[in-house]
Each structure stands twice: as structure tokens, then as C-alpha cells.
């Protein structure tokens, strides 16, 4: 079997045993990327061939004496291009940062680099992670490996497409309102948003600070657990990073049943607007959970219908503050030929930001402006408390929740570009867990009649990634969706 088809765990085992070298892994992925990248466009920047081969050589040379490896050593990874990589361009999918080369690493990169992985490149995203399709990237959209006329989802669409198209074995994404889970669902791979605070955001370019979280996109649940192990832990450089113990998450992905677990089915997630094909697949998944020992219980989360309005006020307000830093002074783009400072600020921001970013900055600025703060921002933060309380009440009775990830399979490129509100509405099932800071995973649970993947979402209590992973693993192994791969004709 071709190297690029292996899962992270399989590749790790072959490398650890000495069956394959880092050099062979690097060459296999360089070849794969050269074949499919022109069609899928997962990456904004690729590590230069010579650098990658040199890194691989250094790993192999270092191992000659005796073979002591780390879990991610020589593993070929893609990194979402809003995570700072020292010395490697980090664009955020924006003209504003087109030439930005971070002088430091994000904490997650420092953790990764200590294990000597092979960083293949930086993956595409909607500009500043604002979007659900990658169509808002200043560098053009990525394509869905299952059908190139369709979106890969977003905003971590490049990461999800790269994993699905075997252009990396696993990737990092970031999730503010669904940006890991939704593209994972669109591309038929696994995406895990950890609990807010579980993973340091130091070096993640800020979008909405009370929501942003980094997490893995992988081929299997086990791979997600391996990646999570490498990411977690308190970081003094991120004051929201939690001081919590963490288990070995790979131990959660072992059991093939969910005996003694209570599975909650929130009725609001199956209401009007859910595509019948998606609904059917989620119902099938619920039956699978029952078959492997879960006790199914219908529950209600009444504030769900308010989640989108709440989210788009809070996220845009925070974005309008966070993006005030792009002023053409310290880094990034500066408009040319400006005679004075105020003109330079205005011209830089007007030329450097794309339309979706401007729209959100405008909405957020409006919601925070004098006279509107209480009616919009403060109200949204109060409703957010109600959304959290809904979850707290339900988690007294159930161990995890099952739902769709998005109301439809991946839509066609261009289909919703002219109608921002329509695009926002497709985030209905991923936003509530973001607002409440809960861990949530997306994994494949079938295909539409047109052959597009459909995703299943499991949400858990704060810091109970282990239960979410356990349930996801048991489901994955009670079905065979993980073996289905897209065929990309070159």
C-alpha cells in the first residue's frame, strides 16, 4: 500500500519499527502533493522540497545509533495558516499578512517541533478564519476531494482537504464556531475541537478570543487522540490555558462498546432545515450507538435556536477589536503613497482586508458602538449564559450528545457566496458547543446520494475529551466509513 494512504498510527508503527525512513515518508508525500495539489489546492505555502528532505535526513541520521522515537517524529503534517510558524510565512489567507514571517512559534508548534515531525506546509483557510467554505481566502478556494465542484468546508478547509486527499497524514485546524468540525464533515475525515482552554492559543492569530481553539484533523479517531496528546497542557503564555490534568487520550480510543454511557439526542438539532439524507444518517448512527450498549435518551436544549444570532454578535465584536491591530505599522501590508497617518490606516485596512472580513468588522463595530452595546453585545453574552445552562442541565443526565455537524452535505462552490446570512445559518449545529466551550468531534457517518460525506457530531462535558473519543472510536469501529476514501483522478 502506498505510504500516503496510511493513517498516522500505521505510519508511526512502520517508522518506529525501522521499516521505513523519514526520507521515504518525505519523498512519498512530495510526490503525492505534486500529483493532487493542482486540483485540490489545500496549501497556501509548501515547505521547499530541499528543506523537507534535509529535515528528513536529519531525523534519519539522528536515529542511526539507536531507535528512540517520539509519537510525531517524521510524521508529515499540515498546519493551518493562522498558526504562527517561526521563519515560515503565515498569511491567515489574507492580503494583509501575505508577506508576514513570524519571528516566533506558536506554543503548539514548539510542542510539535520537540518531537521532530515533518511540517509539509501551511494550509488554506477563509481569511482570518472567517467563513465556512475557504471561498473567502485571498488565495482562492480549496476543493473538496470527493467532488471538486463542492466546497471543502471552512474555515480549516485546506487542512481537511489535505487530510482527505492524502496530502498530509494529519493536520492542525482552529475552531471558533465550527471551523474544525464542519470541514472535517465536508471532507469525510475526523475533526476534534477540544474544550476551550485545553490547548494553548499562544501564536494562533486571534479571531474571537472567547471562542478560538486549536485542534486536530485526522483520518481516524485514534489519530486524533495521538495528536491531542501532543497539543495539551497549561501554557503560561496563554492566560486562558487551563491548569488541568490530562490523561493519555489514546487509551480512550480502545473500547469497542459504550456500555454504561447515556447518549443524549437533542431534539432541536433535528428540527426544520435539516436535509432528510443527513437526518437519516444521523438516525442510523444513533441506532449504532444503541447497538453497542448506549442508552439513548431524548433531551432538549431550548436556547439552540438563539445560538447563531448570539454567536454572530459575540464573534464579530471580538473580531472587530482583535483586527484593530492591522494598521500597517508593525507588520503586514501597508498601502502605498499615503501622505499622513490616518489616511495610511484607512487605506491599508481597506485594501488589505477582503469583503467578508470587512463585513464582520463592520457588524462587530456596530454592535459595540455607543448606544448599541447593551442591546446587542451584552444581550448576546446573557443569552450565551442560557445556552451554557442548557448544556449543564442536560449533562446531568447524559454522558455525551449526538447531532449532525451541518444541515446539508458540502454545498457547491459559489452557491452561498452572495448571501452571507445563508452561509452563517449553516453553522447552527457547531456553534452551540463553541459558545459553551465544550469538546466536540466530527466523524464520518455516511455519504449522500451524490457521494458527498456526511458528518456526525459528538459533544461532551468540559474536559471530557476522553468520553467523546471513546464514543467516537466505538462508533468508528462498529461501522466502516473510515475505510472509504475519495478517488482523485490526476
Amino acid at each position, binding site marked *: 500500500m502506498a505510504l500516503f494512504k496510511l493513517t498516522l498510527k500505521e505510519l508511526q508503527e512502520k517508522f518506529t519499527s525501522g521499516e521505513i525512513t523519514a526520507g521515504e515518508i518525505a519523498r512519498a508525500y512530495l510526490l503525492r502533493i505534486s500529483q493532487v495539489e493542482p486540483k485540490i489546492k489545500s496549501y497556501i505555502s509548501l515547505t521547499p522540497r530541499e528543506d523537507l528532505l534535509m529535515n528528513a535526513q536529519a531525523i534519519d541520521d539522528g536515529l542511526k545509533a539507536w531507535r528512540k522515537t517520539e509519537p510525531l517524529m517524521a510524521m508529515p503534517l499540515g498546519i493551518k495558516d493562522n498558526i504562527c510558524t517561526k521563519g515560515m510565512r503565515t498569511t491567515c489567507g489574507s492580503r494583509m499578512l501575505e*508577506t*508576514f514571517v513570524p*519571528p*516566533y512559534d506558536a506554543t503548539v508548534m514548539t510542542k510539535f517541533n520537540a518531537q521532530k515531525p515533518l511540517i509539509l506546509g501551511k494550509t488554506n483557510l477563509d481569511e482570518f478564519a472567517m467563513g465556512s467554505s475557504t471561498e473567502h481566502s485571498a488565495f482562492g478556494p480549496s476543493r473538496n476531494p470527493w467532488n471538486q465542484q463542492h466546497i471543502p468546508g471552512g474555515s480549516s478547509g485546506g487542512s481537511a482537504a489535505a487530510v482527505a486527499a492524502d496530502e498530509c497524514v494529519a493536520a492542525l485546524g482552529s475552531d471558533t464556531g465550527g471551523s474544525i468540525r464542519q470541514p472535517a464533515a465536508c471532507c469525510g475525515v475526523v475533526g476534534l475541537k477540544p*474544550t*476551550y482552554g485545553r490547548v494553548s492559543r499562544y501564536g494562533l492569530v486571534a479571531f474571537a478570543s*472567547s471562542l478560538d481553539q486549536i485542534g486536530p484533523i485526522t483520518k481516524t479517531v485514534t489519530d486524533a487522540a495521538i495528536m491531542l496528546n501532543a497539543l495539551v497542557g*497549561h501554557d*503560561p*503564555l496563554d*492566560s486562558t*490555558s*487551563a*491548569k488541568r490534568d490530562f490523561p493519555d487520550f489514546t487509551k480512550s480510543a480502545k473500547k469497542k462498546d459504550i456500555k454504561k454511557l447515556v447518549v443524549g439526542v437533542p431534539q432541536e438539532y433535528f428540527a426544520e432545515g435539516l436535509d432528510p439524507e443527513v437526518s437519516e444518517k444521523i438516525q442510523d448512527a444513533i441506532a449504532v450507538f444503541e447497538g453497542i450498549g448506549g442508552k439513548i435518551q431524548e433531551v432538549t436544549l431550548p436556547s439552540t435556536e*438563539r445560538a447563531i*444570532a448570539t454567536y*454572530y*454578535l459575540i464573534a464579530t465584536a471580538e473580531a472587530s477589536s482583535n483586527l484593530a491591530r492591522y*494598521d*500597517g*505599522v*508593525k*507588520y503586514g501590508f501597508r498601502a502605498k503613497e*499615503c*501622505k*499622513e*497617518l*490616518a*489616511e*495610511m*490606516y*484607512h487605506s491599508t*485596512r*481597506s485594501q488589505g*482586508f477582503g469583503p467578508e472580513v470587512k*463585513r464582520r*468588522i*463592520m*457588524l462587530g*463595530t*456596530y454592535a459595540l*458602538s455607543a448606544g448599541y452595546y447593551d*442591546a*446587542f453585545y451584552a*444581550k*448576546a*453574552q*446573557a443569552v*450565551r*449564559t*442560557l445556552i*451554557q445552562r442548557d448544556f449543564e442541565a442536560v449533562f446531568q443526565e447524559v454522558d455525551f450528545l449526538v447531532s449532525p455537524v451541518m444541515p446539508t452535505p458540502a454545498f457547491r462552490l459559489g452557491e452561498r457566496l452572495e448571501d*452571507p*446570512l445563508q452561509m*452563517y445559518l449553516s453553522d447552527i449545529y457547531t456553534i452551540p458547543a463553541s*459558545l459553551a*466551550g*465544550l469538546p466536540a468531534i466530527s466523524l464520518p457517518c455516511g455519504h449522500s446520494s451524490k457521494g458527498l460525506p456526511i458528518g456526525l457530531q459528538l459533544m461532551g462535558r*468540559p*474536559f471530557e475529551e476522553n468520553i467523546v473519543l471513546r464514543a467516537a472510536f466505538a462508533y468508528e469501529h462498529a461501522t466502516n466509513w473510515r475505510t472509504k476514501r475519495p478517488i482523485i483522478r490526476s
Partner: protein
Amino acid sequence: MADISQKEVEHVAHLAKLDLTEPEKTLFGEQLSQILTFVEQLQEVSTEGVPLTSSVADQESFLREDLPRKGLSQEEALSNAPEANEGFFVVPKIIAK
């Protein structure tokens, strides 16, 4: 229905330090009105006595000890500046002649 006037669009753009073209003003005016109409539904929710969210997942924030540590060098800090000179960021004149 929320209706954002052209003047309000211009005011918000000014606060956000954005220059909008005439077509952008019209488009954003329409789209923001539509989005604000949608979010106005929150006014129907009773939140009397409900505290505003200040954290999620029972989170506390942590401050690290106030000890000196190595930061970026001046050279690194200036490495991405559009214009720098002798250790300073350079900007256009603050007050035009």
C-alpha cells in the same frame, strides 16, 4: 426591521477605519440590515437576572509570575515592519501640512 442608513454605514466604517466605495456602502448597508434584523430576535429572550458570560467551561484565567523573560530582539520585532529606521517603526506624518 433594522434599517441601517447610509450615514450609519459611513459612521461605523469611520470607527473601524475602513474606506468604503459607494457600491460597498450600498451592499454592506443592505447586508448589515438583513443580519441585524436576524439578530434582533435576541430581544425576545428574557434574560432578566441572567449574568453575562465571563468565562466558559468553569475556566479561571491564570497570570504568570511577573518575572523577566527573554522576548523578541529589536531586530526580530522590526523584521516585518513595512518601514523601519534605526530601531524605530516609521509612519507617515501624523499631521498633514
